[in-house]
Each structure stands twice: as C-alpha cells, then as structure tokens.
C-alpha cells in the first residue's frame, strides 16, 4: 500500500471512478491542462481526454449551473470551484436549483453531482482564499456537505460522493492537502457519507471537529493528556447529514463537550450541535458546551491569521474550561 497525501488520494479516487464509469466528468477552471491549482485533477485530462476533464470559462455560477444540466442528462459531473471564497457566485445555482430539483420535480429529475472546493485557512493565502463557509451550505436543504480530514477518508468519501444519488458539496481542507501522508489502499473503496469517526477514545470530555481542525484538536488532546485529561475526539466527516448518534453517545459518556471549527462562531455549526445535544442529551451534561472557533470577523490576512484560527493552545484552554466547571 502506498503512502499518499490528500491531493494524491482524491486524485486517485477521481481516476478510479472515471475509469469505471464513463459518465464521470471533471469541469472547472484550470482543472485540465494545469490539473487544478492544487493539482487535485492532475493527469486526468492527459488520461481521459479533453472531453472528460474540461477547462471552462471563468464563471462559478456557470460551472455549477451547467453541471446540473449535465447531471440531469446522463453525466456525473465533478465540478471544481477554485477556492471556497469564490463559491458565492455559484450559490444561486446551488440554493435555487441544484438543491431543489429532486423536490421540485417530485423525483422525476435528480442531480447526482459533486462540487469540490478547497476551503479553510492556515496556508498564508491572499484575501478570499481562506474562508470556511460550511454552515452556509449545511443550512441548505437538499445538498450534502462532506469534509474529509485525512487522505484515507478523502479517497473513500470522494468515491462515495460520486456514486451518491444526490448533490454533494465536497470541502477539502487545503491546509491538510500535503500536510499528512498515510496508507491509502490502491483498491476502490468507499467511506460512508454521514458517518462520523471516533479518532481517539476517552472518558473525560468529547471534542467534536472536522476538516483541518482535526489535527489541531488531536494536538490539543495530547497536551490535555499530559494534564491527566482523557479526551475523546470525533471527526464528523460530514456536516450535513450529521452523524448525531456517534457524538451523542460520546456526550452521554463524558458529559463534557468542546466543539472546534475555524468558521466564525455566530451561526457556526457548533451552535447546531449544541442544539442537538440539548434536545437529546441535555441531562447528561455536567458543564456548558464550549465552542473554540474563528471569530465573527473577516478572515484576516497572513499577519493575523494565526490569531484567528483555533490553535491547539486555544482548544486546550476550552478543554480546561469545561473540565474546571
């Protein structure tokens, strides 16, 4: 088994599905000859030709809007948006059309497609290249929002996303793209969409996270372990649908919760998780749930981005706070 980073793992998943299913096609800006600005689609045009890995005009609304048309007429488009900061022009198509077509046509038309995009901060990128807007997407009925945190999951989830009968927004934490290498099977496999993963078992506190925050949370938890705090870490892997059972079971055991996300705090998904904990496990709690998140500000440029992003130290502070309550 080869060790791969997340870029290579997603690339492998795309390649396998394109080999298996001639309906799978890649569209987006710079996805063809260039192979994507992060090289996720590298080699696909060389291997499958100009008609299956297609460079499009520079127009995000156009890319996802035509993807709907392709999807309702026999193709399985995997559209790439270059950065999540450039998602907004495409939101109209996602909100008003892609997410609703199954419902509007009472199942007559469906939209099996994937919209991939790198998201999140921490790589010293320019303005509009560091945003985390997953809660905006999770708020839209009719689309699923998947976020891998490791190369293994990324491959299994992209394959599952392509095969899913509904539209999937596939958010790739760009900070992790080349930061982790791990064993990724050569075989074709899937990771189920909507299943969280317990990354570390512990009885004292539950830390819920996703995307690039998983690594930060694991570091924080190692520091907490030195203080005798035994934390359980859960990677949601999809924020819509959310795997409630996995974290609720953990909460019932630990009675203490810290939620970590790099998106702004207000109306972030931490709020939704707290609501669900309150609805289903309120009486298990021994402390108010703590959120360690980005702030309610524009994502700052590089001089201040580390101040904005939740760090292991800030997460540890959150863990200590719920433990001390």
């Amino acid at each position, binding site marked *: 088994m080869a060790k791969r980073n997340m870029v290579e793992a997603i690339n492998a998943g795309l390649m396998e599905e394109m080999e298996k299913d001639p309906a799978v096609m890649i569209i987006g800006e710079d996805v063809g000859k260039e192979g994507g600005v992060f090289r996720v689609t590298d080699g696909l045009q060389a291997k499958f030709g100009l008609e299956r890995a297609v460079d499009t005009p520079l127009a995000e609304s156009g890319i996802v809007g035509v993807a709907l048309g392709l999807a309702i007429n026999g193709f399985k488009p995997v559209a790439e948006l270059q950065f999540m900061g450039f998602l907004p022009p495409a939101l109209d198509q996602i909100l008003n059309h892609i997410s609703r077509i199954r419902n509007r046509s009472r199942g007559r038309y469906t939209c099996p497609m994937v919209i991939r995009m790198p998201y999140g901060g921490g790589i010293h990128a320019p303005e509009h290249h560091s945003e985390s807007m997953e809660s905006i997407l999770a708020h839209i009925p009719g689309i699923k929002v998947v976020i891998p945190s490791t190369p293994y999951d990324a491959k299994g989830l992209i394959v599952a996303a392509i095969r899913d009968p509904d539209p999937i927004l596939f958010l790739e934490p760009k900070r992790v793209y080349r930061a982790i290498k791990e064993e990724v099977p050569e075989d074709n496999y899937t990771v189920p969409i909507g299943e969280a993963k317990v990354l570390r078992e512990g009885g004292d506190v539950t830390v819920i996270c996703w995307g690039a925050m998983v690594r930060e949370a694991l570091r924080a938890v190692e520091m907490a372990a030195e203080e005798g705090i035994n934390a359980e870490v859960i990677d949601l892997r999809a924020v819509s649908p959310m795997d409630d059972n996995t974290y609720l079971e953990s909460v019932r055991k630990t009675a203490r919760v810290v939620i970590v996300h790099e998106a702004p705090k207000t109306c972030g998904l931490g709020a939704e998780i707290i609501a669900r904990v309150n609805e289903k496990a309120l009486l298990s709690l021994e402390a108010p749930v703590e959120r360690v998140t980005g*702030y309610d500000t524009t994502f700052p440029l590089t001089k201040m981005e580390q101040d904005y992003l939740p760090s292991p130290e800030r997460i540890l502070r959150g863990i200590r706070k719920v433990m001390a309550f």
Partner: protein
Amino acid sequence: MIETFDPLKGEMLMILHPDGRCEEKLKPDLTDETVQTLYRRMVFIRLADQRALALQRQGRLGTYAPVHGQEAAQVGSAYALGEKDWVFPSFREMGVCTMRGVPLKDIYLYWMGNEMGQKVPENVHVFPISIPVGSHPLHAVGAAWAAKLRGEKICMVTYFGDGGTSEGDFHEAMNFAGVFQTPTLFFCQNNQYAISVPRKIQTAAKTLAQKAIAYGFHGVQVDGNDLFAVYAATKEAREKALSGGGPTMIEAVTFRFGPHTTADDPTKYRTDAEVDEWKPRDPLLRTQRYLKKKGLWSEEIEKEIKEEAEAEITQAVEDAEGFPPPKPGEFFQYTFAELTPNLKEQMDDFLAFLKEKGN
C-alpha cells in the same frame, strides 16, 4: 478613434509600432518630456514587480500577481485619467495603482499580509483591489451612476482581465452601464491567459471589445503594449463619458510574460515559442525605441533611470518591512463602525487568551 476602429471588422488601434515607428496622424498630444516620464514609470513598475517576485522567493512577501508585460496598458490608461476620477482595480494593477498615487510601500505591505496596505491615502481615489474575478466592475458602475446623479464631472474606470469577462457580474455591470448611461470606462487587459486557460476558452467571440456592442455602447480593441494607443483611447473614452456620452469598453491586447501569480508555473500550460513571439512586442522596448529615434534614450540614461527606480523601490521595501505589526486584536476593529457587544466579548476573550499565553 474609439468609434472608427471596429472590433467586428478586426480593427485594432495601434499608433506606436513594435519597431518604434509612430503613426504621426494618430499620435496623441504628449510632449517628449511626458513620454520620457511615462517611460520612467514603466521601468519603475517593471523593477518594482521584479522586486516583489524576489521578496516572495525570499519569504518576505506572500503570493503576488505580477504585471510584467502590461506596463504600457497600465501607465497609458492611468495617465489619461483626471485627478478626481476613480479607479476600481483588480489584483494585477500595481502599475495603475502606483500611477494613481498609491504608495508602492502600501502595495508591498498588502501582499506581505497586512490589511493596512489597502488603506488608500485620503486624496487618492483608488478602491481596494478586488480578488474575486469580474465582480468589481459593478461597483465602478454604481459609483459612476452616483457621479452622474450628483453632477460630478468625473469618470470611473474599472480594470479587469480576459477571464473576468466570463463572470456573470461583468455582464450585469456592462448592462447597467448601458441602461443608465453611466460615465464608466471598462478597461480590459486581455493578457491571453486566466491562470492556465487561454483566451479562446473564455469566449467564442473574436474579440472581447465587441461585447460592448450588445450592451449598446462602443468597444474598441487597442494594442495594449502601445503606450500611445492606450493613452489615446482612454483619453477619448474619458472625454466621451464626461460629456454625457456614456460608457466605453477598451480591450487592451497584451501578454502576461510572468506567471498568473507566484503560485503557478506557466511552462505547464504554454510554450516558450508563444512567449518568444510576444517578446519583440515588449511595451518597454517599443517606447525605448521611439525615444531612441528622438535621441532621448541611451544606455546611460537607462542606467540612471534604473538606479533612480531601484532607490525608490528599496525605500518602499524598507518602509513596508518597517511598518509596525498589527496591534493584537486589530482584526476585530474594522467589522463595524463600533464593536458590537458580541464582538467586544470575543475580542476581550482573545486578548485574555494572549495574556494567559504570556504575550
């Protein structure tokens, strides 16, 4: 001129030929001294650009979008504007911005990752650069509309690239400008590539300039490496806008010699032969040849120009690097006119965290 050169007939305005020869009948009213000054600014921009790339490689500056090859398009157009006109730039407009009075120090500071670099001086009418492609022409149209309503005799100029013309917002901006006859100048630098994607994949139309026709106003294609053609077309479009003639689109046909930004490698998507084809059309060489014919350029003068530019650039680097780092929590301060209670709480918590860490 902007109405006589018809993009649908493949007519492109060129005044200064690549060999330095000039179409005297079309030559704009620029004194030799002014041409020399503009040439100096073009050299300055090229060297400031090279310095930005060097700083990026040394890790002293972040991702940067170079101007190399587009100096005439930026200098010629910016010089044609009036002092009170506004500019709405995209991210590759270091040349335009410095021409309009944005200190080079500020531009470096921004790409070094400090938002203060986008705080344009009070007397300079340049909007912060727009990174989302093709989204800002609408702002120029709105500002121009306001100028029209307020009776201000000014023009609003928006700069964007060939890639930007594919975005929906670009079309909406053109349409609004046509409908409300706003004094807007759409200045497109067609540098042939949107990162790796060639111009022919942006549109099946033969020119970008002809898009204006569909919105009810004139579009003209000019040789973007020709300082005189760019200046003349911009000046005329501006005068037209000021006299109530509405918007114009100028497509400056040019070439990006460098990468899209410091983050990509152009050899992956274009051939050396293509780059070589454009080299004789270099905007600096062309202006230099013109000046040489007039006895106004020599190796010695060039050396002196470069030394002067390098000194100015070095000072800008020193000023940018010596600029005080942001105060802790500065990023909270500019969200609203006043901190909301929620933001205040978040900022206090952040500062408390820093204190606990011992900073």
